[in-house]
């Protein structure tokens, strides 16, 4: 019930925001939605299934470059998006295989290496990606005479996809798959003994997380209108990791909070000149110390205080 109220409030705010926000703030909000989509994907892989991935930016690049490369040939945005998502899903499956053999920081190393390789391939495959010059003037989608060219129209376009991603992620995570993912995260051996195919579920956790990264990447390219390899570095992957960890690993609300904080906080602190990095880092350190379960802990506290009763936090 409370979750539905929060959802209704969120949708209301997102629908009305463009009426009051100036151009730059609307851009930040659009970016937050794109990052939310990416964070939801990583939360599925890492937060629910417990498989660390440090190559989320590489999966994202499949979406971005598919759209950017195909657009000049008159390919509709949605087709580019589907191509990008398919590529990301496929490579997610491939990256799932090492997860069957290695765990924890070893898996972190493997995925980290993949991000670096992806970055180098993008930078050096100049005929396709434009190398370090990148690709500029990436067209925004249009349906016949209905164009999403304006910032406000494109914002609503992103909002539509965000709704699709949130709904589908919720649907997957509340299914038996979501439960199996959590079982793997909590105790792999036990999960296998109650019949969970570690191979199938780990591959799917990687591939679905990667597919969401592909969606986010595809929406990202026309939003910023210019992409280069620098947008898909390891730093970016770590930024997604931070969103998911800050928000609350394995909690559905986590990515919403994490994406908002990690995207908006640096902007809000921009006025403090060079101090913002210090404040930002300090906030992260303090949070890790006092809220190891992420910012979603504050949310739980508020809900408990408002509702007055103790509720077992639903992890789905």
């Amino acid at each position, binding site marked *: 019930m409370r979750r539905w109220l929060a959802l209704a409030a969120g949708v209301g705010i997102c629908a009305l925001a463009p009426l009051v926000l100036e151009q730059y703030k609307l851009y930040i909000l659009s970016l937050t939605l794109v990052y939310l989509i990416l964070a939801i994907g990583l939360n599925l892989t890492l937060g629910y299934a417990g498989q660390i991935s440090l190559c989320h930016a590489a999966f994202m690049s499949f979406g971005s470059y598919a759209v950017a490369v195909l657009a000049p040939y008159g390919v509709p945005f949605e087709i580019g998006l589907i191509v990008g998502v398919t590529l990301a899903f496929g490579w997610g499956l491939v990256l799932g295989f090492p997860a069957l053999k290695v765990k924890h920081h070893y898996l972190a190393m493997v995925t980290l290496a993949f991000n670096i390789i992806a970055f180098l391939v993008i930078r050096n495959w100049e005929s396709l990606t434009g190398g370090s010059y990148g690709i500029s003037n990436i067209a925004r989608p249009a349906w016949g005479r209905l164009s999403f060219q304006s910032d406000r129209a494109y914002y609503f376009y992103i909002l539509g996809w965000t709704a699709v991603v949130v709904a589908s992620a919720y649907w*997957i995570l509340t*299914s*038996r*798959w979501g*439960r*199996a993912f*959590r*079982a793997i995260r*909590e*105790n792999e*051996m*036990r*999960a*296998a*003994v*109650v*019949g*969970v*195919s*570690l191979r*199938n579920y780990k591959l799917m956790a990687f591939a679905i997380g990667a597919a969401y990264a592909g969606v986010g990447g595809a929406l990202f390219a026309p939003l910023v209108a210019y992409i280069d390899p620098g947008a898909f570095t390891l730093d970016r992957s770590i930024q997604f990791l931070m969103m998911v960890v800050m928000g609350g690993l394995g909690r559905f609300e986590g990515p919403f909070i994490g994406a908002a904080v990690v995207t908006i906080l640096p902007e809000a602190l921009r006025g403090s000149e060079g101090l913002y990095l210090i404040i930002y880092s300090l906030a992260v350190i303090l949070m890790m110390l006092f809220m190891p379960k992420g910012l979603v802990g504050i949310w739980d506290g508020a809900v408990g205080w408002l509702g007055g009763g103790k509720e*077992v936090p639903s*992890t789905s």
Partner: protein
Amino acid sequence: MTPGAAPLLDVRDLSKHFYRLSALTGVSVTVEPGELLGLIGPNGSGKTTLFNCVTGVLQPSLGRVAFKGEDITGLTPDHVYRRGVSRTFQLIQLFSEMTVLENLLMAAQERRGTMLRRLFRRAESEERERALRLLDFLKLTHVTNNLASDLSYGQQKLLDFGMALMPEPEIVLLDEPMAGLNPTIIRSLVEHIRELNARGYTFVVIEHNMEVVMSLCRRIVVLSQGEKIAEGAPSEIHANARVMDAYFGG
């Protein structure tokens, strides 16, 4: 027991080595359908290793395991489970961040059907009902929606037992189900096992409580230092000098 029919579980000449340490050496055990077999032996005699090799948690070094006449040696745990073998753990292994009910549902959901069906089939009322009946049977109804980690040791032990029953298995391997429980719970658990056995469930029970094993099982297998040293009815085991030696030294 139907003499002449193939055994439900047939373990042949099973050996398991950890580097140069030999945990099991040429152990053969058969379990007939509907049986309630006791597996005893001093600490470190290889009882849990035998369970681990049967359920695919460990790969045996030598020998073979057959279930219902089919070779299941070397299958991964999920495949062994789907054929109808379930087990409990000596050191309790629950999904501690899931509720009691979710633990039970988790223990049942992978038993049948395809993976795709598991994504698209949302309804779970049949399993839920079975879980609630089981909780009633185990007197855990009042903690249905508590996190597994909030349960007392005895309750966790019972939940682990419940998880082994959830998939409607053909054989249940119980690894020290009574250890650390108080006498009242032990009595009720013994009753539960007897009742389920009468309903057709097949059990293999590892247990240190001799009184329980002797009264519960009609046949007992004794392991010592990775080898089978005796097998027979409780009275025979009781009178066996090698068994007494293994337990009390000599």
